[in-house]
């Protein structure tokens, strides 16, 4: 016969201070564990959502990001003629030749001159917007082609100085006016500034494109397009699916965050497990008499073991719930940091997903189990007579 669960619950309630302290230790560990995973998840999700499966990015061979890449106009016009390209409204090919550069902008709210960050300026063409349906204008208007006007992503508008609507930026001996703010949802484009490709190329004296983006006529035509680009002796370019391209960019950072998070939580959990162990040992020590009585009443060793294990699992469970509860508030926070791989600013949000919640709960229960196992074994192995005498 099993000892009722309410016995374990009542015990926790009886020693509230101890329970609260143990649970809060565990909750903090779960919080850190979940928060770091959420950060890695948010980063990856942002970059993966940035790309769409039907789009293909062409960059110079060996370049891991658009900033490093360069495509001469001649090469660009060869790529433009690929037969695998989709045709958009008005019978025009859905292809955008873009130029990507980095500029140093000052962050809002920091006065030190060194707190610059690198922001992507993307020179785009009309078709760029058709190729990226995620991008929507939220205020102001689009830039006029051929003018020194730009539109900025909402993460940039929020985080940096001088990029509000009607703000002006000075680059390349020209004054650029911000005429619109766009929202690209949870994608990397929200951290970019967009202007007319030809104007940007002129201003920065960069006579080459950085990348060519096009939509496939048929999603399966990718291999053919890739082969056409990479085997053409006139081209030194490579083609990637847009999703793959952005996933590659998040790899180093996400891996770094995951390793950091894992090693931290493993170390931290030692502390929390010890906390649970101390609590459970003292729970056992305080209740020797009770254990003896229960054994005398006919409860088996296994039932006693189960009762104490249940108690420590309960500790872990409450700790896990509390930790997740606080971690879920982290979703309101947007982090903005430099992606090591592209060297440019990227804003992303902590994202709590089902698997992360499950992992965190499982982790918390394991902490409870490990912490409670030795004390529960001690309780179960007590001899009836000695236990009764000790009381």
């Amino acid at each position, binding site marked *: 016969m099993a000892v009722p669960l309410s016995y374990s619950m009542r015990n926790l309630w009886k020693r509230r*201070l*101890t329970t609260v*302290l*143990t649970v*809060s*230790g565990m909750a*903090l*560990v779960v*919080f*850190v564990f979940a928060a770091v995973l959420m*950060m890695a998840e948010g980063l990856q999700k942002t970059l993966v959502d940035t790309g769409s499966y039907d789009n293909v990015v062409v960059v*110079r*061979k*060996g*370049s*891991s990001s658009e*900033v*490093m890449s360069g495509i001469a106009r001649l090469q660009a016009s060869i790529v433009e003629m690929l037969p695998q390209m989709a045709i958009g409204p008005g019978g025009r090919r859905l292809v955008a030749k873009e130029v990507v*550069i*980095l*500029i*140093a902008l000052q962050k809002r709210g*920091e006065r*030190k*001159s*060194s*707190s*610059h*960050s*690198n922001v992507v300026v993307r020179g785009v063409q009309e078709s760029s917007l058709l190729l990226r349906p995620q991008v929507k204008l939220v205020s102001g208007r689009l830039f006029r082609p051929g003018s020194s006007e730009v539109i900025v992503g909402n993460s940039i508008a929020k985080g940096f100085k001088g990029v509000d609507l009607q703000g002006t930026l000075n*680059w*390349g*001996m020209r004054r650029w006016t911000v005429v619109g703010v766009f929202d690209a949802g949870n994608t990397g484009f929200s951290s970019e500034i967009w202007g007319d490709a030809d104007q940007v190329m002129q201003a*920065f*004296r960069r*006579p080459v494109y950085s990348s060519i983006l096009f939509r496939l006529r048929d999603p399966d035509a990718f291999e053919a397009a890739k082969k056409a680009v990479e085997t053409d002796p006139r081209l*030194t370019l490579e083609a990637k699916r847009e999703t793959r391209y952005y996933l590659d960019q998040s790899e180093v950072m996400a891996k770094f965050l995951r390793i*950091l998070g894992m090693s*931290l939580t493993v*170390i*931290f959990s*030692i*502390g*929390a497990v*010890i*906390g649970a*162990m*101390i*609590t459970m*040992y*003292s729970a056992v020590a*305080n209740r020797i008499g009770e254990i003896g009585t229960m054994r005398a009443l006919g409860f088996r060793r296994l039932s006693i073991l189960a009762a104490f294990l249940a108690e420590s699992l309960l500790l872990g469970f409450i700790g896990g719930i509390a930790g997740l509860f606080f971690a879920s508030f982290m979703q309101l926070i947007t*982090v*903005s*940091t*430099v992606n*090591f791989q592209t*060297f440019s*600013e990227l804003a992303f949000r902590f994202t709590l997903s089902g698997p992360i919640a499950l992992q965190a709960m499982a982790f918390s229960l394991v902490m409870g189990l490990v912490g409670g196992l030795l004390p529960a074994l001690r309780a179960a192995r007590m001899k009836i007579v000695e236990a009764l005498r000790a009381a």
Partner: protein
Amino acid sequence: MMLLKILFRNAFRNRLRSGLTIMGITVAILAFGLLRTVIDAWYAGVESASVSRLVTRNAISIIFQLPLAYREKIRQIEGVKHVSYGNWFGGVYIEEKNFFPNFCVEPKTYMTIYPEFVIAPGEMKAFLADRKGCVAGRKLAARFGWRIGDTITLKGTIYPGNWEFVLRGIYRGRDQTIDESQFFFHWDYLNETLKQASPQRADHVGFYIISVTRPDLSPEVALAIDSTFKNSLAETLTETEKAFNLGFIAMSGAIVTAIQMVSFVVILIIMAVVANTMAMTTRERIGDYAIMKTMGFGGGAIAMIIFGESLVIALTGSLAGMALTYPAAAAFGHSLSNYFPIFLVSRETLWLDLLAALLIAFCAAIIPTRHAIRVGIADGLRRIG
């Protein structure tokens, strides 16, 4: 003396519990120390940077270059001692995960401006004489087993193609804080190749490094350089090397802040554990305190005993943790040497460890002490176990 004896006796009355608590503190202090060291390692480039060296780069951002012609103009500015220049090459050795910083520089002036890179005179001569020559740090050479005379091929990411170099020298750092994992080669090699392959990219440099005659002249010299090139196609931004390096760290500021916060969380976690131990200890000993009160000891004496016990446990654990930080940092630094070339435990970290231990001890003892002082004598005596 008597008090100390009582404190130790009390602290180790329940050996198992105290042992576990001390172990927990040891782990926590170890984690705290390692995290602080990670942050220090992040800032290592700033610490070793000099304020008497200036870095000039394109004002738009570091991906834009400056004309080589600026060199002579900078040299004319008063207070400038030496001018060197170079480019970030960004080459990949075999695979991307083999990352190490590689630059092409004007070797003669660069090595004069950076006396902390120590290189044997014979090797230096061989390096200068060979345009395809390169110099690698001691740690970097050891990592890939390079020997002098080896041919090294880097795959260019910014400058396409495969680039071959001959290792002519291995530099050492003047002391432990110098990064020994960098790779330098002749700027001329890059430039001459670019002249043939893509002439419009040639004769441009990524950055100028300038040494000034007196460190206190740095701000004026920086200002003079920037105003010389104001309103030109390539405006410049000149900062001290320290500020320049700090700028890079400010970019990844969110991550540094996260690590910093996490290092405090571990202290909170262990605080909860120690507070739990102290709560149990006092709960068991309420009878003792009641007897002490009956004998005439005041609340102060009881508080001292509880705080002292907490302190004994916390300090024992943290001393063990501090002692373990050194071997752990050595092992950790070894496996992460690609990310953090400098990984040293600073004295400041040890002081912070100690401070954390004191904080843990005091915070953990507050609630139990209040409880012990408040309990009435009769109540305390009535309670058993």
